[in-house]
């Protein structure tokens, strides 16, 4: 992947896209983030497949303590826990490429709006996360015999997209904050996980609906869907505004 740069004056969008291309070119050459995320996601999925009792299938329930829980809800939880931690692995490295050679300082001095820097990092993180999900979700459905045919895949795509937007906004903001600290690997989950809880509860609820046979119409009618949309808007605005303070010294 080459980084050909046209010689013309760039505005906000142009600079943002240029920085996204730079991040993707760096990742394509270094392969330092994506392989780790994929390895984690597939290993955890495989391990989780062994935790379900024999015979447990979509449409049945598994015993949990004194009661029981639908397998669709368990599987939905499995999927999102896997994506959550795979994403955090990627976000933890989001600013590593700048930090190691001090490339953030020239970026801060260049006439680039801080919100363009935030948007470019969030977009790069979104692309990386989406690549993981493109491989993980079909493999997950195959491994756990989840039928995503008949338009149900549209429901999954909608939920994944909405979750990803909020997730990368929060992850990018806190990875920028954590990158300023010495214990950055520990700081990111400590800072991000409490904020991410509502997004991932909504994700689990909506995905369980899809796994149980619901489509796009079913999930769009639920309150959790509205919560996801609202979270995306709120975290995008907060992220763009707070990023300057997160990186300011």
């Amino acid at each position: 992947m080459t980084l050909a740069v046209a010689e013309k004056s760039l505005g906000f969008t142009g600079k943002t896209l240029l920085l996204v291309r730079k991040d993707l070119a760096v990742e394509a050459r270094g392969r330092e983030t994506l392989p780790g995320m994929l390895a984690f996601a597939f290993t955890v999925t495989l391990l989780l497949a062994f935790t379900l009792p024999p015979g447990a299938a979509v449409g049945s329930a598994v015993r949990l303590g004194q009661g029981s829980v639908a397998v669709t809800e368990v599987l939905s939880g499995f999927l999102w826990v896997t994506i959550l931690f795979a994403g955090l692995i990627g976000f933890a490295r989001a600013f590593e490429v700048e930090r190691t050679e001090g490339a953030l300082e020239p970026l801060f001095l260049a006439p680039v709006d801080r919100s363009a820097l935030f948007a470019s990092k969030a977009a790069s993180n979104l692309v990386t996360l989406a690549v993981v999900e493109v491989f993980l979700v079909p493999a997950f459905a195959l491994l756990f015999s989840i039928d995503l045919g008949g338009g149900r895949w549209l429901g999954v795509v909608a939920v994944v997209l909405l979750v990803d937007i909020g997730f990368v906004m929060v992850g990018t903001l806190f990875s920028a904050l954590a990158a300023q600290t010495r214990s950055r690997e520990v700081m990111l989950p400590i800072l991000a996980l409490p904020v991410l809880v509502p997004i991932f509860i909504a994700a689990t609820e909506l995905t369980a609906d899809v796994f149980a046979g619901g489509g796009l119409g079913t999930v769009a009618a639920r309150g959790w869907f509205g919560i996801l949309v609202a979270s995306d808007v709120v975290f995008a605005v907060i992220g763009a505004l707070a990023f300057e303070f997160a990186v300011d010294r």
Partner: protein
Amino acid sequence: MIDLAGVRVVYGRTIALDDVTLSIGEGVTGVYGPNGSGKSTLLRVISGLFRPASGDVSFDGVPRHPADESLRRRIGYAGHEAGLYPRLTVRENLSLFAALWGAPAASVGLGPRADARVGELSSGLKRRASVARALVHQPSILLLDKPFAGLDDDAADLVTDAIKQWRAPGRTAIIATHGAKRLKSFADAGIVLRRGRVASDHARTAAGIVR
């Protein structure tokens, strides 16, 4: 003219710069001092990367404002790290920063190594590329933090040549360094920092550097 008046920078309990008052004119000014004396912090404050806890920095009598883009355009800064992407080639790095600055792509000046990835360059070439990156938008003020650190004589010559080529009337270079010997041979003025304070501030005359 760059003026600092009563600049104080504090990191936690450490006072990095303490009541620093200076005037720096055009030409090359060396900033000398031992580790932890505040050299890097001084450059970062002048560049705008750090905001001082108190005191003022002004350029030609105009106080610095963080959002002042025209002032930022006057400054080129290369820290003690390269400030480049190791996975990209030198040419790609310079094109990237030139595009962000809205400047035409600069000549790299590294011959065939311009198409080598920065991570594959020697320390000297990497430092030379870092200076080229700082100059990509043709600034009139150049701030270099320890540009000769860890370089052998040949590599340091590469960096020195780049600075001398850039040097011109009306331009100001402020260079922080441990080893004064190389820089003193072409610096017009020198500042010595100790424990965040100005220990001495002198200008060069025909007779040499004097207070």
